[in-house]
């Protein structure tokens, strides 16, 4: 598949954290992948799988999650266009988490063989992928702090700030507005609180004039105040260039 030259989410994502040469960009553009449309709330890969390919989110929202023996789900990160949520499976044989769509997604499956070949030919792309998985780990660390030690109101504000900055990095925001097809029940699974509690903090954030959240649309009315409410500092996202100014 070839993308519209102006918008390839994988390249946009990598370029938000790593400087690519024209040649490297072209090699990424030509990476063979099988593109599949997947409905909302479907597993893309499951814990225990031994994948021979990695999945690139081309459009839509997905999440990485784990489940307790009693069936309770913890979403450990949201996956946005440009993300390769199971890139680690290139080196770790057995998946220790699952990835599910949240909204309908277009997913590009890239054979590990093709990724290995690309990495052999372009060692700097290996560095870029390494950097990407290191940043994924930084996001997990931030989420442990968020879920473990922050109040629900702060947790929610923090996650909304993160989503806006990450979506902006791949060109999917307009000012402080973005699509946000994440339900309150899904936020509950991500924040480790009940959906009733999520609803309370959403109502509180609205009442405080920080956000408008209706349907699938988020509008941040006061970015500085939301960042303050969420104790949000984008350093852990390690964005480069103009994205770093968020």
């Amino acid at each position, binding site marked *: 598949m070839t993308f519209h030259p102006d918008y390839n989410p994988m390249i946009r994502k990598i370029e938000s954290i790593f400087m690519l040469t024209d040649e490297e960009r072209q090699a990424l553009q030509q990476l063979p992948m099988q593109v599949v449309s997947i409905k909302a709330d479907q597993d893309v890969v499951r814990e225990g799988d031994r994948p021979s390919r990695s999945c690139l989110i081309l459009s839509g929202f997905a999440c990485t999650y784990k489940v307790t023996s009693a069936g*309770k789900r913890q979403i450990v990160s949201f996956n946005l266009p440009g993300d390769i949520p199971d890139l680690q499976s290139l080196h770790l044989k057995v998946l220790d988490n699952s990835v599910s769509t949240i909204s309908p997604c277009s997913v590009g499956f890239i054979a590990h063989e093709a990724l290995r070949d690309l990495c052999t030919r372009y060692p700097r792309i290996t560095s870029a992928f390494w950097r990407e998985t290191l940043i994924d780990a930084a996001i997990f660390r931030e989420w442990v702090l968020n879920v473990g030690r922050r109040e629900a109101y702060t947790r929610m504000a923090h996650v909304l700030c993160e989503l806006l900055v990450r979506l902006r990095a791949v060109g999917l925001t307009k000012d402080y507005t973005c699509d946000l097809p994440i339900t309150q029940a899904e936020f509950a699974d991500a924040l480790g609180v009940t959906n*009733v509690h999520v609803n*309370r903090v959403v*109502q509180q954030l609205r009442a405080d004039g920080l956000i408008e959240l209706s349907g699938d649309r988020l509008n941040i009315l006061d970015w500085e105040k939301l960042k303050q409410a969420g104790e949000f500092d984008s350093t852990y996202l390690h964005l480069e260039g103009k994205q770093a100014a968020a």
Partner: protein
Amino acid sequence: MTLVLQPVRVANGIDGEGMLVFDREHRLLAVLTHLSTKNEVAPGQWYLEAGFGRLEGVNHPTFADLDAAQAWIGHRLGKSH
């Protein structure tokens, strides 16, 4: 299991009306909150705001009415004996 209910106001900022739930020996088991009709996920339902002892944990269900809440609490306490 006999439960004793006592109305209370809960200062959670949004849903004020609640109910304390005691056992026969007047030990506090749970605090239930009556969610407002404006609540977007479970309007008008009763929510396990806090549970103590065997009701403590991450599971905070909502109930259609107080009977359903009491049945759940009784079941949870009975099951763990």
